[in-house]
C-alpha cells in the first residue's frame, strides 16, 4: 500500500511497523519474564504439582471438540435450510436467531445456572458445552448463510433434475463447496470455547471438571496471591494455543476473513 522509493522511506516504514508491534509484544514478554521470577522453572513445577494440569487440558479439549461438533452440524444444516429451502416465515426465524447474537453471556447466566441445577447437570461438562454452542450458533449461522447464499441455485437445480433429493443435494453438492466457511466456524468456535471462562467458572466447581482458563486461579485466593505461580500457569495455558495458531496460521486467517467478508 505504501510506495517505497529508496532506502530511507523503506527503513522508515520498517521502523513504524516495529514501533506498532511493540505494545503487542510487550505484555507477552512481561508475562514470560514474570513467570520465571523467584523460583525460575520451579514456578512451572509448582503449577504441575497441583496435579490438575492434564485434567484441565483434557476437559478443555473435550469441551472444544464437542462444542465445535454441535455448532458445525447445527450451523450447516440451518444455513442450508435458510439459504436454499422453503420455510414458512423464514425471515422471522432468521431474525429470531440474529437477536440472540446480541445476548451477552453474563445476562443469561443466572437462569442457565438455575436450569443446570434443576436438571442436575451442575458440575457436568455438558452444562458448559450446550450454552457455549447456543451462544455461538447465531453468529456462525449468520456467516454461513451469507456463504450459502453465494452458492448458485443453478447447481442445486441441476442436481435436482438428476434426481437427487434435498438431503442428497446437501450432502453431495453443497457440503463439498463449504470448506472455507467450515474453517471459519471451527476457528471461531475453537477460540470461543477454549477461552471461555465465565460459564466454566460458574458451572464447574469440582476439581476434576475444571478447564484451562481456571488454572491461574489456583494461585489466587482471598488470602494468598502467588504472582509467579499465576503467571507460570498463564504461560502454560497460553503456549499450546499459540503453537496451534502458528501451526495453522493460514487457515486461521483465511477462516476469519471468509467469515466476515462476503
Amino acid at each position, binding site marked *: *500500500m505504501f510506495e517505497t522509493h529508496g532506502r530511507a522511506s*523503506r527503513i522508515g*516504514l*520498517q521502523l513504524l*511497523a516495529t514501533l*506498532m*508491534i511493540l505494545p*503487542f509484544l*510487550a*505484555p507477552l514478554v512481561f508475562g514470560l519474564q*514474570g513467570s520465571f521470577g523467584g523460583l525460575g522453572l520451579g514456578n512451572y513445577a509448582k503449577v504441575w504439582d497441583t496435579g490438575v494440569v492434564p485434567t484441565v487440558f483434557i476437559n478443555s479439549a473435550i469441551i472444544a471438540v464437542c462444542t465445535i461438533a454441535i455448532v458445525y*452440524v*447445527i450451523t450447516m*444444516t440451518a444455513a*442450508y435450510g*435458510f439459504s436454499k*429451502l*422453503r*420455510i*414458512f416465515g423464514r425471515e422471522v*426465524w432468521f431474525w429470531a436467531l*440474529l*437477536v*440472540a*447474537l*446480541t*445476548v*451477552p453471556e*453474563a*445476562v*443469561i447466566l*443466572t*437462569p442457565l445456572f*438455575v*436450569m443446570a441445577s434443576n436438571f442436575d447437570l451442575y458440575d457436568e461438562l455438558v452444562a458448559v458445552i450446550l*450454552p457455549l454452542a*447456543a451462544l455461538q450458533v447465531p453468529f456462525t449461522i449468520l456467516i454461513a448463510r*451469507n456463504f450459502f*447464499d*453465494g*452458492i448458485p*441455485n443453478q447447481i442445486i437445480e441441476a442436481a435436482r433434475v438428476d434426481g437427487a433429493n434435498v438431503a442428497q443435494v*446437501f450432502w453431495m453438492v453443497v457440503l463439498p*463447496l463449504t470448506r*472455507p466457511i467450515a474453517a471459519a466456524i471451527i476457528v471461531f468456535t475453537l*477460540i470461543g470455547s477454549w*477461552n471461555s471462562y465465565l460459564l466454566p467458572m460458574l458451572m464447574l466447581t469440582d476439581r476434576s471438571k475444571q478447564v484451562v482458563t481456571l488454572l*491461574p486461579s489456583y494461585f489466587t485466593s482471598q488470602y494468598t496471591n502467588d*504472582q509467579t505461580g499465576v503467571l507460570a500457569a*498463564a504461560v502454560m*495455558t497460553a503456549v499450546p494455543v*499459540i503453537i496451534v495458531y*502458528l501451526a495453522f496460521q493460514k487457515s*486461521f*486467517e483465511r477462516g*476469519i476473513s*471468509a467469515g*466476515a*467478508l*462476503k
Partner: protein
Amino acid sequence: MRPVSTAPARETLGRPVDSTGRPGSSSSPLGSRFAGVPWILPAVVLVIGLIYFPIGFLGYTSTLDWNGFILSTPEPIGDANYEEMLGDPVFWGALQHTVVFYVITFSVQTLVGFTFAALMHSRILLSNVYKAIVFIPVVLAPATMAPVFRQTFDQFGPFNGLLNAIGLGDLTRPWLADPTTAMPVVMFITVWQWTGLTFILYYAAMSQLNPEILEAARVDGASSFRVLRSIVWPLCRGTTAVLAVLGLIGALKTFDIPYLVTRGGPNHATEFLGTLVYFTMAQEKHFGYAATLAMALLVLAVTGGVLLRMSTRRSEDG
C-alpha cells in the same frame, strides 16, 4: 444483520458467486412450504431453549425480590426493581463507561488495525512475524492474560519500571488502583486483544482491491497517504461497518477483562453492565435486581445492534 463488504470483496477466495451478484435472493428453489423446517429445527430448539427461555425467566425474575436459593420464597414486587435501577448511579455509570469504552476502543482499533494492514501490504521485512505478534492476542484467553496485565500495571510492575527507565518516573502510579487510570488500562487491554482481528479483516479486504485503481492514482501523482485516505479507506467501508457492529456488541458484552483485571473497581470506575449483573447476582445474591439489569442490557444490545445495522446499511447503499 449481515456482514457486508465492499464490492471487490465479492469475488473472493475462489468461492462461487451468484450470477446476479446479489446473494440472499428471496426465491427458494427447493421443496414445499415447510421443506426447510427440519433443517433449521435443531438451531431453533437450541437457541430457544438456552437463550430465549432464560430471557423469559429473567423477565419473570426481574419482578421478584429473590435471593436465588431454590428453597427461599420469592416475593413479587412488580416494577420496584426497575425503579431502583433508574435511580441507581452505578447503573448509569456502567452505561456511560460502555459508551466511552466503545467509542475509544473502536476508534483506536480501527486506526491501528487499518494502518498496520496497509503496512503489511507494503514491503516490510519479517512481515509474517509482525502479523503473528499482532494476531496472537486474539487467540489468547482474557482469563489467561489477565494475571499478566495485573502484574504489568502493578505499582512495582514492569510498566512503572519502564517509565522509570525512560525518565518518566513522575508518571508512575498503581495504574489499576487509581480510578482515573483503571479504565484506560481496561481499554488498552481490549485494544491489545482485538486489534489483530481488525487488522486481519482490513488486510483481507485490501488484498481484494484492484491494483489498477491504485496504480492509476499513483500515476496521477497521489501520495501514499492520499491513496490510503481517498481510495483504500472508502473501499474498505464494508469491513469498517462489520467491525463497528461487532465492536458494539462486544462492548455491551464486555465482562472478562474488567472482571478479572479490576473487579469493576476501584469504586465502580470500570463497572460495565455485564460485571454489574454478575456481582449483583453472585455476591449480593440479589437475583431479582440482577435480572432487571440483565433485561436492560438485553434491550440495549438488541436496539443497538439493530440501529447500527440499519445506519451502516444506509451508508452502504448511499
